[in-house]
């Protein structure tokens, strides 16, 4: 972690009481005279760093250091909207006599995060929805997962009349996501053998039933992206913040040091024994935990003692997975999505330039370039 002493001031966004200064990055060609800020893959490889701080299946926190905000934001947006995941897309209602309307029940079912064999899920094909008017496409075992949910509520005989707990009085008084059963078709029997498709969290309440009510639905799950519907987003959230920077300009000792520490979240300010006076002195502990609330700037006694800021190219990335894929895997998928998009862009650009060159060559014979037309291939 960069200590507050040696962070290049060009990398620091200043956070003052009523203003945020030095916001835009300046490391691009032509900004600083006689300095080379051209982008190069080798330069990027040498400076760019990734540091992991937490990595669990459902949550990952890591730092992307020396990366431009546009790229970090690209990854965040791709994670939210373009990394594919499996979700319930169509609901076939045989019976639903619960008080939840069919439409609402379908919507609730769609939002349930699903888990299953990761490899088999990745290998799933896209189910292309036919345009209106076209004949419906038949779902197959490599693009659709079939789930069933059926629950009927009845009175349990022989329960005391004074009993008030619906779960003791009736069967299926609450229908939970764990009641959803997977119906493997074709090769899914083997590919999902060890890890069947099921709800990521078994305790999601879907509906409540009372005696005589019944739910019997069949669900088709397909692969989709968050751009289409939020249920396909593989992340609960993916966000980043900039690393906070605290610079103590004058020593703060004794009781004042305690008051100073109270302005920050716990752990942000640590104490050291002062060499001169032997009193305790405030030093920066874990600046990472700071929320940059600017509370310290409201206190008259700390005026001129401290400078707050954030490191502009140090992104603290946090990814929360919904469970279908591990949080760190999701980031790698986001990178590969971006890579695939770049490949397409490159190919299409080449194609476009080639076409323009060909057009110019064939066009020069009969017409010649129009007045004011300074095309690419004019030479």
């Amino acid at each position: 972690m960069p200590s507050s002493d040696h962070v290049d001031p060009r990398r620091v966004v200043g956070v003052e009481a009523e203003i945020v200064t030095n916001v835009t990055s300046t490391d691009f060609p032509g900004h600083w005279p006689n300095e080379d800020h051209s982008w190069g893959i080798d330069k990027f490889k040498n400076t760019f760093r990734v540091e992991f701080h937490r990595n669990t299946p459902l949550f990952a926190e890591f730092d992307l250091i020396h990366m431009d905000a546009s790229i970090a934001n690209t990854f965040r947006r791709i994670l939210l909207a373009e990394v594919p995941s499996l979700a319930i897309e169509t609901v076939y209602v045989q019976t639903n006599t619960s008080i939840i309307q069919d439409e609402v029940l379908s919507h609730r079912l769609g939002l349930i995060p699903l888990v299953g064999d990761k490899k088999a899920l990745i290998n799933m094909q896209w189910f292309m929805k036919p345009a209106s008017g076209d004949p419906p496409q038949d779902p197959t075992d490599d693009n659709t997962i079939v789930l069933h949910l059926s629950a009927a509520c009845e009175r349990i005989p022989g329960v005391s009349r004074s009993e008030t707990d619906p779960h003791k009085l009736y069967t299926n008084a609450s229908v939970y996501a764990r009641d959803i059963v997977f119906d493997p078709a074709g090769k899914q029997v083997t590919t999902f053998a060890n890890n069947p498709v099921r709800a990521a969290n078994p305790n999601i309440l879907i509906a409540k039933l009372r005696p005589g009510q019944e739910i019997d639905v069949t669900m088709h799950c397909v692969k989709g992206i968050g751009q289409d519907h939020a249920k396909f987003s593989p992340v609960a959230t993916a966000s980043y913040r900039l690393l906070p920077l605290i610079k103590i300009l004058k020593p703060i000792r004794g009781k004042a040091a305690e008051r100073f520490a109270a302005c920050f979240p716990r752990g942000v300010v640590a104490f050291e024994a002062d060499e001169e006076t032997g009193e305790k002195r405030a030093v920066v502990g874990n600046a990472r935990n700071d929320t940059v609330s600017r509370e310290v700037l409201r206190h008259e006694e700390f005026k001129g003692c401290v400078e707050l800021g954030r490191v502009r190219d140090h992104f603290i990335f946090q990814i929360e997975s919904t469970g279908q894929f591990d949080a760190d895997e999701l980031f790698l998928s986001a990178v590969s999505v971006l890579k695939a998009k770049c490949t397409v862009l490159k190919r299409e650009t080449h194609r476009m330039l080639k076409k323009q060159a060909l057009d110019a060559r064939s066009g020069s014979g009969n017409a010649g370039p129009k007045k004011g037309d300074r095309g690419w291939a004019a030479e």
Partner: protein
Amino acid sequence: MSDQREAYQPPNSGSGRSYAGPSAASGTMHYLCAECGVKVGINKGEPIRCKECGHRILYKQRTKRMVQFEAR
């Protein structure tokens, strides 16, 4: 949501689960009593009346036909 209604699919005949319609043999329709909730079978020409409590309001049962919805 209106387009979801158009995605309605007819039931596969022969499933034998449609007790909402009159059963072919007897012509009996089953309704639910609005007062006591009991299932009442009523034949053609019979008075519309609950056989248990005599209430005259009966509800039609929900269709057993399959209805398709988008989970959106």
